[in-house]
């Protein structure tokens, strides 16, 4: 797979920006050829409801019955055992639920800020996955398959739609886990490498401490580096003239220009000094519990604004086999205010209806108790919430049984989630294929049903 990074349009943009003095001798020849830059925005299969995705990924498996899947029967049957609870006692949620917004969505007191946006949220209560094991489910959530190495959701989206800002990566993952599949979760597998996600930071690392690889030159200032790049480009242009039939060289020339711009564009996105104090406060930046995830959320908005196609946020760990009362409360405190601020901010800027915001983890937790203060893995029933991007707000879609053990109505597997996300982005999951090793591959393989009922 041979790829060039720039199209004619980009070249013209670049030139008008006035970078470089020698690099563009071959420009008219290049423009005439009509390069296909694999990252340029592409037409979707049909009208898209959402232009971009922000996926807040909660590693560890957040407890649905304590957050967004209200189960009154659980309180009623507190302490009882049932057939499906394998001899363990059901435990009512230590937190109370109340109804919010016009829609009256029941949301736990753990999420007071998000509750205010109930009418924007679609609670997907009928999620299920294949196995109660973190790595498998985490990888399947991201790639659709845990048996084989497959491209990630973000890579598929980028492959299908390209990206709107050629100065920034089109798929950025903030603070992803190194475990549970690591880079596979934002990898491109057999798709061309240009579609893989760019990682910024590591799980549980505050992004204010992140250092970027190769974005800063330790030897030269910007001015001298520009001279150095001009020298490189003079050689590249000479070579291009000699090899008038090698269009790849245009890609090389362009990649230097983009690299030069990225050196400032990427750190620029990560600087928050042009944000108002009240915005920082809204996101919880500076707050003890909220600073780290608040930054992720604010970066996500900035990246969304800049045209990044797929942004994933990372938070851990929601794996509360014990210490549920303390740790779940803390987790929710970490993410509640920042995510609420994100929804609000996107809404204020008129971006929410074209940005699909998704929250969830690799599975949920059992309603029965482990010892006296923990819940185990539950892949047979759990919840996601989604907002924006063409979805109905104030909706509770799908359901688990009365105790929250297994999904029973409008069940949604990861394949269905993927199909629905692609659908909202204007892509038909059965048509988004890539030929590899002699056959056409899909994110959803032979599965996936679009959940039409949640689409506005």
């Amino acid at each position, binding site marked *: 797979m041979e790829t060039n990074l720039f199209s004619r349009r980009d070249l013209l943009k670049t030139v008008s920006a006035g970078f470089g003095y020698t690099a563009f001798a071959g420009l008219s020849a290049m423009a005439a050829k009509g390069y296909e830059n694999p990252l340029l925005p592409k037409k979707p299969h049909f009208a898209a409801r959402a232009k971009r995705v922000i996926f807040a990924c909660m590693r560890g498996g957040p407890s649905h019955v304590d957050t967004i899947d209200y189960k009154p029967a659980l309180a009623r049957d507190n302490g009882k055992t049932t057939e499906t609870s394998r001899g363990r006692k059901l435990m009512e949620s230590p937190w109370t639920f109340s109804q919010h917004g016009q829609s009256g969505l029941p949301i736990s007191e753990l999420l007071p800020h998000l509750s205010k946006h109930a009418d924007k949220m679609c609670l997907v209560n009928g999620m299920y996955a294949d196995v109660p094991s973190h790595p498998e489910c985490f990888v399947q959530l991201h790639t659709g398959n845990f048996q084989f190495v497959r491209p990630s959701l973000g890579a598929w989206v980028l492959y299908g739609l390209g990206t709107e800002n050629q100065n920034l990566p089109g798929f950025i993952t903030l603070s992803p886990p190194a475990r549970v599949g690591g880079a*596979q979760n934002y990898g491109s597998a057999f798709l061309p490498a240009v579609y893989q996600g760019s990682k910024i930071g590591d799980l549980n690392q505050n992004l204010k401490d992140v250092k970027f690889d*190769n974005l800063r030159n330790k030897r030269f200032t910007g001015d001298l580096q520009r001279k150095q790049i001009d020298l490189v480009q003079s050689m590249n242009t000479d070579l291009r003239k000699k090899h008038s*039939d090698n269009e790849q060289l245009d890609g090389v020339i362009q990649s230097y220009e983009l690299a030069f711009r990225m050196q400032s564009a990427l750190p620029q996105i990560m600087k928050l000094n042009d944000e108002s104090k009240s915005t920082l406060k809204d996101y919880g930046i500076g707050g003890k519990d909220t600073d780290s995830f608040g930054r992720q959320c604010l970066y996500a908005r900035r990246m969304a604004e800049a045209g990044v196609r797929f942004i994933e946020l990372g938070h851990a760990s929601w794996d509360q086999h014990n210490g549920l009362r303390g740790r779940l409360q803390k987790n929710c405190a970490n993410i509640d205010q920042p995510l609420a601020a994100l929804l609000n901010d996107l809404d204020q800027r008129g971006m929410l209806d074209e940005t699909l915001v998704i929250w969830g983890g690799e599975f949920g937790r059992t309603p029965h108790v482990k010892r006296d203060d923990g819940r185990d893995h539950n892949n047979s029933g759990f919840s996601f919430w989604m907002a924006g991007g063409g979805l109905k707000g104030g909706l509770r879609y799908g359901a688990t049984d009365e105790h929250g053990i297994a999904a029973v109505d409008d069940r949604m597997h990861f394949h269905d989630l993927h199909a629905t996300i692609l659908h909202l982005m204007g892509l038909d999951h059965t048509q988004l294929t890539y030929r590899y090793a002699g056959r056409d591959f899909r994110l959803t393989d032979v599965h996936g049903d679009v959940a039409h009922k949640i689409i506005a």
Partner: protein
Amino acid sequence: MLLACTSVHGELSQAQINYFEKKVRPLLAKNCYQCHSERDQRLKGGLALDTKAGVLRGGDSGPAVVPKNVSKSLLVKAVQYRSDMKMPPKKKLKSADIATLVKWVKMGAPDPRDEVAEVTQVESTIDIEAGREFWAFQSPNAVAPNAKGTWARTDIDRHIFAKWNEKGLTPNPDTNRRSLIRRVYFDLIGLPPTPGQVASFEKDSSPDAFEKVVDQLLDSSRYGERWGRHWMDVARYAESNGMERNQLYPHAWRYRDYVIESFNADKPFDLFIKEQIAGDLMPAGNDARRDELTIATGFLAMGPKSLNERNKRQFEMDVVDEQIDLATRATMAITVSCARCHDHKFDPIPTADYYALAGIFKSTKTLFNHGTSAGVRQRSGLAALSSSANESKGVSYASAKTPTNKKSKKNKRNRAPKKPTGPVAMGVEEGSVNDCAIHIRGDVAKLGQRVARGIPQVMHHGDAPKFPEDQSGRLELAEWLVSRDNPLSARVFVNRTWHYLFGRGIVRTADNFGESGARPSNLALLDHLALQFMKDGWSVKKLIKSIVMSRTYQLSSAPNPANSEIDAENAFYWKASHRRLDAESLRDAILSVAGGLKLQPPVGSVVAPLGENQIDRNVKQLAAVKAEQPYRSVYLPVVRNNVQDMMATFDFAEPSMIVGRRSVTTVPSQALFLLNSKFMLENSGKLADEILSDSSLTTPERVGRAYRSILNRKPSSVETQRATEFVAACLKSGQEESDAWSGLCQAILGSAEFRYLD
């Protein structure tokens, strides 16, 4: 097509069936299925009690029931609480229930839950005879090229020339000596020539000047490092599992060394393939040879695996699938594994053919770990080597300690297989030999009819090879793969070789010769190469030499618009492609130019002493495998999901996949690496120091030295002027002289010219 069969329990009496249905089944369902159910994929200890096969096959500790033999039936022992294994674990069964099970075993364990009851007959609608018509399944055919005139030097040239005539193409001129020697150095050994080597070649006017260079390069140990790495791409070589449990493979490096040594020794390629698939079944005269053959089978063992899979059968079939994919695609470029769930959509390969191969690999035991790493459910043990294996190589990295996992001592489920005390390798050995049943839609719980072990029907014209009762059949498979009857293996390898030397295969899709792949642009040439390769005893060095000695290989890369009108993609090789260096060549060349490349290979690998830990969890170990080493890139650790940054940036082969053709991407992260990385700053600094060390040189002389060292050529006067101005500008802004010159060297190293082969 699925045809349901009627269920027959001919041999069971109604009384036996009743006993099972009324007494035994409810008992098992109530007390055991919760943890031992194939249907629900709950297979603690690998045991399923909800099928007859599950009961008889048993779990990790052996068969649960031996009919009529109470004392050998682990199920009875467990429910009687007479062994370490006490089942059900929470509460002993009532004595009446235990008696029921004992009586059932004594009766011969009649079990009407026969899998036959649900066997469906899977039939295929593929027309094998028609499939044989496809070019790739026909044997290679010698065709004399229709080439007149004096242009051609070799048979290869004549085939190429004939195609040009047919298409109306004219050949490019021969390339100049400087570009030719750079080309052949990078192609054969993956390193640039030194300025001295270029000069002496340019001066040598003898008619065999080029041949001498070629012979010298093929004799060099650097050759095996270059060509071995090509094969490692195909063999998806890696030193960790990848996937969701990224356990290290601390012994994988032995396979790497085996591959490099095999290429250096010019081991016949047919033997090389045979060793990797069936080395353990081949005779060995001595310990060293036995070790070599054992290590060779690591080929089959190092694929990515779902090490945390609960269902043992699922795991087994996934490993088998990966091995089928590898064995068929690496050698024949046929995607047999597409037929796992249904007949192949494009190629004449019915599902039954897939399971005929599956039987071979399912009768094989794959040895990939000790299983000492926590959180890994699947464990296998490793292959023992002779005690001399480590010592004879000297030990630096390889003093591998395998840490024992404390948890595993306590926890029965986590107990590791018995660990050999001496040196070990990944590999395979014979397992329990059996044909494999078709898995309907690939589902391990839905079995169809059994299929005799064999090879894809479309691939043999006469009698199919016979597969033995008492062996897996890997040896027969391997022998058939590289027999003259196989229409593909020789073609596929000569095509891979051609691809590495020209940047494009005669069949462009080097890993797919099937219906959905590309057609050969010159079938006569492909067949000529394949037939000659076999005639030359599958000598890879002879093959390479015959190609690089052709006039075709030595063409210039200059553009020719008239030819481009006809063949813009250069599918007919009328010019040399302007090719980019791969990641290893780029890194090795920079190190080599800067004088920092250590050519002495390391012993073992950085990964070897780290044990079987899960690398993703260990920051220190990750830092160790990512740390820069002065060795050639082929010796850098290949840890899945954690390939070294420079390698990953410049399109290294994804080590979880079979890669015959790497991507060539052009992305800004590459430019950022060349502009700002520590690696570039350091190495350009070293080169600058060298250039500055001779204080008698003038600035233009220094510029000249930089160009000659990096690009093997003199700078033009314009280039000298630009470089001089750049250095002056740096000095004027207050930079040290060394920084100014480092900046210049870095610019030349970062130029496209350095990264492209002319």
